[in-house]
């Protein structure tokens, strides 16, 4: 059982080394790369600009960006789907009747069939 947190490096050290190696190569690449001075943001509220970008009102925004209304809506659907999916996955069958995460787990459900 691995319920208790513990640092058990012994058997997986080799695999861990791969992560370290990845960091090493990436660091080597990044450090040697030159990006020049960042442009940064001027005046104006960044948060407000984000809001405008989300609702496709970029002409009002202080900072340049693309509009994301469609993406925003899609994310909305994705979240709902994920929620439903999570509930679906989490339900469990016990003694013939389905017990879902949304039921009140304390009640006896045998009398009323499925919930």
């Amino acid at each position, binding site marked *: 059982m*691995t319920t208790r947190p513990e640092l058990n490096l012994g058997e997986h050290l080799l695999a861990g080394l791969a992560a370290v190696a990845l*960091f090493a190569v990436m660091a080597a690449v990044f450090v040697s790369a030159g990006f020049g001075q960042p442009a940064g943001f001027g005046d104006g509220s960044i948060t407000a600009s984000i809001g405008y970008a989300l609702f496709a009102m970029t002409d009002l925004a202080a900072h340049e960006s693309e509009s994301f209304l469609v993406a925003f809506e899609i994310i909305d659907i994705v979240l709902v789907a994920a929620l439903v999916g999570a509930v679906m996955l989490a339900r469990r069958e016990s003694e013939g009747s389905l017990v879902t995460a949304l039921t009140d787990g304390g009640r006896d459900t045998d009398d009323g069939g499925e919930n």
Partner: protein
Amino acid sequence: MAIQVQYYLLLSAAMFCIGLFGILTRRNALLFLMSVELMLNAANVNLVAFSFQYGNITGQVFSLFTMALAAAEVAVGIGIILVLYRNFKDVDVTKAATMRW
């Protein structure tokens, strides 16, 4: 004097590799989920860093989306872990190998 972008990248790479280290060395699915969150956020750091680099807000908006998706991912992930536990009476990822072939 703003900080050069490669240092953000370095930070992001470090976060990513820490998350990866977790995935590679742990067998507990919950810890997996945490490590994956770490890796996702490493990507967010990148997005924000480049947003700053180019003075374009898109990267920041995107990082918001990523967080929303991360939430969805966690919800599904926890659900999967629940099923995993139910089927294998354990959350050890090495046990769930029945779908390999």
